[in-house]
């Protein structure tokens, strides 16, 4: 009898324990949260102040909203699936909390996709503004960093054609750049890893708004080059690919070369690329050896000549190497002009010559512009596509 009572008591206690298990101490109901998908940092009118724009999702509108709202460019008129909240202040984290004056929902950052920084702000240094995005436990290191030529709040207000949310559109846009390899994809963790390095300079993709009449679209072009936390210049698309060749980030891309013995041009598509950086120090001269291996295919041809013979292919490979070499040299020249070690040459010297590096790192700014680079580019064409000779009328 006593045993049975104990058993019943245990069951009752177990059931009572179910009640507190669900816990509601620091609960956040889904309908009291607003999901932030994009953050923009702009310079405000007052010196030292910034304007922070956060883009929050309006889940109810996601289903019904048309992909592109043509009647008005501004958000918040009831048909857009997003709401851009803007506020100015001195410190990013304080502004984020201040949003509660305007937003009835608590802003929720873990789903933030992109952090857009206005170019003018980046030129003044961004370390103090991005600290909250590194330190706060709601934000993530996967967030993409983008520098915008125009004001970030305008970029976040351009309704995209394919996506419903401008921020998601920008994030996907940046991630799709590996098709051309003309713009880098930089996560916050990559950015701060370069920022914490004494010599290696951070980079970020550049975006801008292009308008064609009333139609506005966001496009990615080139790379923003930083020195420590200040933006000092930019690389154009071609130079960007030169940079990506060096840092082993080329995933694809088209390169046009002229047909060596004939008319027209041939488009070669890069399928695979690999690079290796080896510094050599010999009696106070530093030489960076770069070995680049690229594989490509023939993607299109504008002439009528059959270029698939081994002789032709070999000369095409040569042309391709020359083109890659030009891209890298262009990137090197710009980086040297800006005196910003975006390639990580200093780091590679530290890895191989740690003792020499101790002296070098003090005067790296003087050493870097005079550094010599030896390029060894090896290209292979793997395929001519579905056809060999082009489809042209038969010759007599």
């Amino acid at each position, binding site marked *: 009898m006593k045993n049975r009572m104990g058993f019943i008591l245990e069951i009752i206690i177990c059931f009572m324990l179910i009640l507190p298990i669900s816990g509601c101490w620091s609960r956040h109901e889904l309908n009291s949260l607003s999901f932030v998908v994009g953050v923009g940092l702009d310079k405000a009118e007052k010196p030292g102040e910034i304007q922070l724009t956060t883009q929050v999702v309006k889940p109810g509108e996601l289903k019904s909203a048309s992909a592109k709202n043509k009647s008005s460019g501004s958000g918040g008129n009831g048909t857009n699936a997003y709401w851009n909240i803007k506020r100015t202040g001195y410190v990013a984290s304080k502004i984020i909390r201040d949003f509660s004056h305007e937003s009835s929902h608590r802003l929720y950052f873990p789903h933030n996709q992109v952090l857009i920084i206005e170019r003018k702000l980046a030129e003044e240094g961004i370390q103090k503004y991005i600290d909250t995005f590194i330190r706060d436990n709601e934000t993530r290191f996967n967030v993409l960093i983008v520098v915008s030529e125009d004001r970030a709040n305008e970029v976040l207000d351009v309704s995209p054609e394919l996506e419903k949310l401008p921020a998601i559109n920008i994030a996907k846009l940046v991630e799709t750049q590996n098709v051309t390899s003309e713009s880098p994809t930089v996560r916050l963790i990559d950015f701060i890893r370069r920022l914490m390095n004494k010599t290696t300079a951070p980079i970020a993709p550049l975006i801008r708004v292009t308008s064609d009449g009333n139609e506005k679209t966001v496009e990615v072009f080139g790379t923003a080059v930083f020195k420590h936390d200040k933006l000092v210049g930019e690389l154009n698309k071609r130079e960007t690919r030169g940079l990506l060749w060096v840092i082993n980030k080329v995933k694809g891309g088209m390169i046009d070369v002229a047909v060596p013995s004939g008319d027209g041009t041939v488009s070669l598509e890069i399928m695979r690329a690999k690079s290796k950086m080896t510094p050599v120090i010999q009696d106070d001269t530093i030489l960076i050896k770069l070995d680049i291996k690229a594989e490509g295919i023939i993607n299109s041809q504008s002439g009528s000549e059959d270029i698939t013979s081994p002789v032709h292919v070999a000369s095409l490979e040569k042309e391709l190497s020359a083109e890659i070499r030009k891209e890298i040299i262009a990137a090197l020249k710009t980086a040297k002009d800006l005196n910003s070690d975006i390639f990580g040459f200093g780091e590679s010297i*530290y890895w191989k010559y740690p003792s020499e590096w101790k002296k070098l790192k003090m005067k790296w700014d003087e050493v870097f512009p005079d550094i010599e680079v030896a390029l060894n580019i090896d290209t292979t064409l793997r395929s001519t596509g579905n056809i060999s000779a082009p489809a042209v009328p038969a010759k007599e």
Partner: protein
Amino acid sequence: MRLERGIISSSQLTFLVAGYVQGSVMVVAITNIITKQYTWLVVLSGLAASIPLAMVYIALARKFPGKDLIQINRIVYGPYLGKLVSALYIWFFCSIAGFMLTYVGEIIKYYMMPETPKYAICILFACICAWTVRNGIEVLARTSVIFVMIIIFVILITFFLLLKDMQLTNFLPFFDLSLKDFIQGTHVMLTLPFSEIVVFLMVMPYVNKGVEAKKSVILGLIIGGVSILIDTVRNTAVLGVTSTIMVSPSIESVRLIDLAEIITRLEMLVITLLLIAMFIKVSVMYYGSVLGIARLFNLRSYRPLVLPIGSIIVSLSILSFTYLAQNVGFATGTGPFFTLTFEFSPVITLLIAKIRKLPK
């Protein structure tokens, strides 16, 4: 008089030691600030240095079969000095259990429930440990087998999921660490995770085959050490230089896992791992202090002591640290010297026992 009726097998002892070692450095990177990208190196050297100490503990346990640390102290140092030394050991066990409980509280509070007060988490966690300790060493040893398997599984899974994010250049240049930093790092690694196994001198009498204990303790140390090593290598390879400023590199590196946007946000795995590893660590320390006090005062049972000691440990955990970075500061500052005192004194005990030709 047997305080503990349970008996554990030597393979269970292996897992208990492994889980115990995995406990403290799983989440909070202790030496990253000092040793930067060479933490893996000091993990190895710390492990190597801890094996001789572990041999001393085993030799002591085998010299006095069936006797725990408190009884050994009484025999070697005599009734009065022996009791003093034992009391100091109990204080040491209590405070380490308190510190470990703080880790749990702070991590859960910061990463999971920022608005929940730390004491709520600490008390709940201590309740589970108290329940386990009340049920005896056998229960603890059996759970540790399952838990250690889970820990190893999670570590391996996260390692493989992060392979594509790893950059081996983060370990370069190969050895650019000053000797001072290397010794300090090794010291921290030796004293904090590895040689804290001195508490197993309280458990050793209940291992069924005393002869095999040596093999199982060393094996447990190596399992624990290797899983810490994999963890450290993963963090350094993924995070690089940024791992030196992070409060918890493990959580931050696992946060970066993103497999086609489907397998993502896995940091809760690391926190789960922390919880179960800490459960083993706190429970063993807790068990050691409870059993020690019962032995010190010649009690017939240790069970009435479980709750009072538990409340002392909880109070210690709330009083000891207020934020995680402070904990790291302790671990790289006074902490290693504090624990080394207790970890090294069994060597002296063994020497005195040899000189006095004990046991007679």
